């Protein structure tokens, strides 16, 4: 919105309720991502991906568009905070997130009665690791048989996909928990 303030023209950006929601949820996802970055990992690249719980909750409650924004902001802003923006690690993160979102988009046709958050979480985790292994093998380490490690990565994806999916399913089933802790906050702020 343009307005006059003395001699200067002032541009005021009015954030919508959805902007607030996206910013709040992305901040939550970034906090989880940073916490996780401090944890040691037995195999480089094997992480629980706790931020994906936020993506799943957003997807179920607000739809794919909002989930896309939250995941994208988390990858970009999180990498800036970690100092890995535009590094190979960032490219892997971005590739994994895009592949996960693509699979979630494809899975939107699955009947919700039978396929809950756990299905989406496991499918997204497999897409994530498949995309990352492909990027490593085609771009970062061509000629190295990285798929030799794929059973370990796939097993981790299965396990963490299940655990994240269970957490998301629990939070969706007990909406009071999320509402009290956060979802209500931006509503009152906006």
């Amino acid at each position, binding site marked *: 919105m343009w307005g006059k303030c003395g001699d200067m023209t002032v541009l005021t950006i009015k954030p919508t309720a959805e902007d607030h929601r996206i910013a709040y949820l992305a901040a939550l996802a970034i906090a989880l991502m940073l916490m996780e970055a401090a944890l040691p990992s037995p195999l480089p690249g094997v992480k629980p991906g706790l931020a994906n719980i936020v993506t799943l909750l957003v997807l179920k409650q607000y739809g794919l568009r909002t989930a896309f924004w939250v995941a994208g902001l988390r990858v970009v802003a999180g990498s800036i905070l970690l100092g890995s923006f535009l590094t190979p690690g960032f490219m892997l993160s971005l590739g994994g997130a895009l592949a996960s979102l693509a699979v979630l988009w494809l899975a939107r046709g*699955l*009947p919700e*009665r*039978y*396929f*809950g*958050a*756990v*299905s989406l979480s*496991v*499918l997204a985790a*497999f897409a994530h690791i498949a995309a990352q292994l492909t990027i490593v093998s085609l771009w970062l*380490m*061509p*000629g*190295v*048989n990285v*798929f*030799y490690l*794929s*059973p370990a990565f*796939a*097993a981790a*994806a*299965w396990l963490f*996909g*299940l655990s994240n*999916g*269970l957490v998301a*399913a*629990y939070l969706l*089933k007990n909406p009071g928990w999320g509402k009290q802790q956060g979802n209500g906050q931006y509503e009152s702020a906006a």
Partner: protein
Amino acid sequence: MNAYRSAIALLGRGDWAVLATGAVAVMALVVHYWMSPAGQHLVIKRGGNVFLTASLARAFSVEVPGPLGVTQVEVVNHRARVRSDPGPRQLCVHQGWISHEGEAAICLPNQVSVEIVGQVRRYDSLNY
């Protein structure tokens, strides 16, 4: 036990199907990548042509001259590795020991590749 039961309650029929399919996929990857039969022979190629074919049964080491310098390959305990390579990124050296049929270490800059093959080769040829 209570937490276990409430976790089960969160899973729909489709979730079980996805989990089962995922577990089968993981098992298939394990069988394909980790349980393939150990190879019996090693083929070293230089610039696409076979430089040396040898058995993995006996320990030895060999120096393969390439355009950048000498790539050293060694065989110990039925496993092979590239011990040293003049390439800038050392990818084939860092790959470490290879012993399963179909595994290969490729030193692209020096145009040397080391491949493990079985009694019967699964592929007619591998091109890089």
